[in-house]
């Protein structure tokens, strides 16, 4: 018996992480901070690993599309701020409104948009994008993906060392906790009523952010406040104390 228990646990976790990596894949361990310390602390590397697949889904397929898109834009903007190159954004419908994306800090000149009518074309385009050294990462909007397609994307992302953010616009929200996935993380976003202190004005958006799956970490839930004028994320004010206590 050498060392204390937490140290042993850390050694074991690192060992498992090495085992989980596919052959030939490299992981430089770079991570992407979400811009809120309370969230980053719950992720194993202090942020989202850059080499891998991350899934985002709305809690309610139709109604929570806005919050899920907002979280995706936040990830994309933080990625572009951290890495050089362009971001490939592939979708089936062209309904992302670029002026709003520009407001939250996403440079539209660095955004390469592609519309794919068929699902297999969309997945092919994402794989091509992951393969291209000139891109910072790729974002895909799909209805839902099966485990095989997700596995392919995860392997491609791991091999290239670039992130692939996947928005599953019509994935069933409640089953997300149960279904297995090769993705590194899976997030579910739902809207929350905003601060009731402002009776007539629409204040900052509040989300229920659920980390349903996290490789090397544990599921977690956060109530966050998103500033849609700057794209910054913060824990929602009334709940800040409770969440901080939960982490500690």
């Amino acid at each position, binding site marked *: 018996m050498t060392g204390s228990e937490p140290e042993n646990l850390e050694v074991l976790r690192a060992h498992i992480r090495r085992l989980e990596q596919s052959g030939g894949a490299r992981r430089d361990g770079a991570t992407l901070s979400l811009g809120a310390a309370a969230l980053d602390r719950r992720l194993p590397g202090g942020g989202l690993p850059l080499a891998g697949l991350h899934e985002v889904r709305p809690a309610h397929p*139709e*109604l*929570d*599309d*806005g*919050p899920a*898109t*907002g*979280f995706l*834009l936040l990830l994309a903007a933080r990625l*572009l701020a951290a890495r*050089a*190159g*362009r971001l*490939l954004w592939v979708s089936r*419908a*062209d*309904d*992302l*409104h*670029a*002026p*709003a*994306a*520009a*407001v939250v800090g996403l*440079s*539209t*000149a*660095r*955004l*390469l*948009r*592609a*519309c*794919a*009518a068929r699902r297999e*074309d969309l997945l*092919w*385009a994402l794989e*091509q*994008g992951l*393969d*291209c*050294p*000139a*891109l910072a990462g790729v974002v895909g909007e799909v209805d839902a993906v099966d485990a095989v397609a997700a596995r392919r994307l995860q392997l491609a992302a791991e091999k290239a060392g670039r992130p692939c953010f996947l928005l599953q616009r019509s994935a069933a929200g409640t089953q997300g906790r149960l279904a297995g996935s090769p993705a590194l993380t899976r997030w579910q976003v739902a*809207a*929350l*009523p*905003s601060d009731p202190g402002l*009776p*007539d*004005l*629409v*204040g900052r*958006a*509040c989300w229920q952010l659920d980390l349903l799956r996290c490789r090397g970490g544990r599921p977690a839930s956060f109530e966050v406040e*998103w500033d*849609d004028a700057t794209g910054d994320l913060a824990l929602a004010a009334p709940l800040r104390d409770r969440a901080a206590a939960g982490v500690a």
Partner: protein
Amino acid sequence: MISLWLPRFAIERRRASPESAPFALFQREGGRELLFAVNAAAEAGGLLPGMTLSQARALCPTLGSEEAAPQQDKAALARLADWAERFTPWVALDGLPEPGGGAGLWLDITGCAHLFGGEEALLRALLAGCRQQGYAGRAGLADTPGAAWALARHGCEPGSNRRRIEAGAQREALAPLPLAALRLPAGKVELLARLGLLRIGDLLALPPASLTTRLGPEVAARLRQALGEKGEPLSPRRPAPPQEVRLAFGEPLAAAEDLARAVDCLIGRLCCRLETAGQGVRHLRLTLFRAEGSRQELELATSRATREPAHLARLFAQQRERLQPGFGLDALALAACVVESLSALQMSLVAEPSGQAGRPADPAAAASEPDAAALALLIDRLTLRLGAGAVGCQAPRQSHLPERAVTRLPALPTRRAGQWCPAPPRPLRLLARPEPVEVLAPMAEGAPTRFRWRRRLHRVTHAEGPERLSAEWWRDGPIDSRDYFRIEDQDGRRFWLYCQAERWFLHGLFG
């Protein structure tokens, strides 16, 4: 220049009856049926174009006849011209319909003859191909279109179907030919015959300076055109591409790997040519000439000017399964249809891919040259599979209407995109078409308190507005202005609703 003449094109196009049976095409003209074209057997029976059909039947009771279809003749000639483009990219139609149902083509074979083993071999291949398609043709080859035309129609030796003369030999070759070989109207030829001028040589014997004054400008002009003293502009069917390379095969080529190798070979040669010319290609066309006469064209575009063989080869490799050589290919042509100047310096620039000043000046977006090449390749491959227009950038447009505020730019824009105007908050998702909502408790001058969208009831807890956006009166469409509201419901979901002419619509979703 080659002039190809198919004297019985309209008849042979039908291929209805055996050669030995008399056959004629007729045209209706003011209630009469006049012969338009006759085949060899009918001609031997004394029939001539211009006779009435009843007169012809009286002379030749076994005559088969059909009505002429000039439009279909034209289409058939266009197909033949398509086929003939395997010899040269420059093919022009020679006036149709010719009296008597003939037709002709011009082929400019400058720089093409060596691919087929010389001019004589090219002529042989051209006529053999016509024969295979059922057309008996005659061809003349000379320096000028006029001389070639004359040789094809009047200059072939008996028993031969082609005549080629050396460069600069027009004068000697044309002298013994009749005056009709100068493309003069029949009336003019007759007039000259009455003056005792029967052969081109008779004209050549006259003092050249007096030709115009004595015989009119047309005769002099045609003579000088045939001799090459005066230029004759002709337009090809399709504009010749700025750069083109082609391969002709002795044996039809059908194997997929041979085809791939041939395409690679053409790409290499085209890139060499582009380098010499200091150009890069933006639009390419690969044409497959199948042995049986049809052809397939494959076009692809690039996001920036390039002459990188590896780049082009990967684009074609992606399309490989679309190439259908059929039973084999006679020839393969690769044309650069749109080129831009691209210097060697630009190819090696480190900072920006093509040195264009208008690129967004985002320091983080500036990529090193290998990355820029990789990005261009990615864009081209995506465009090829997803379709033109599916890949691009979004840029602001000056409009207050949200659906018109965004415009698409090419993926590698050549001009700097403008700045997004600061505006009140805009939704993250903008519905392609606004969806009507049912407002249950409207307020007199403001937001609704409850509304129904997609069969779900939303109770409004917060609302901001109105933001009035006027219609653009200079465009078609409804002219009512819209009052937009930002609305949050009891679950914290945020919507963008507007009221136009007392009807409510949902236009977008906020984060």
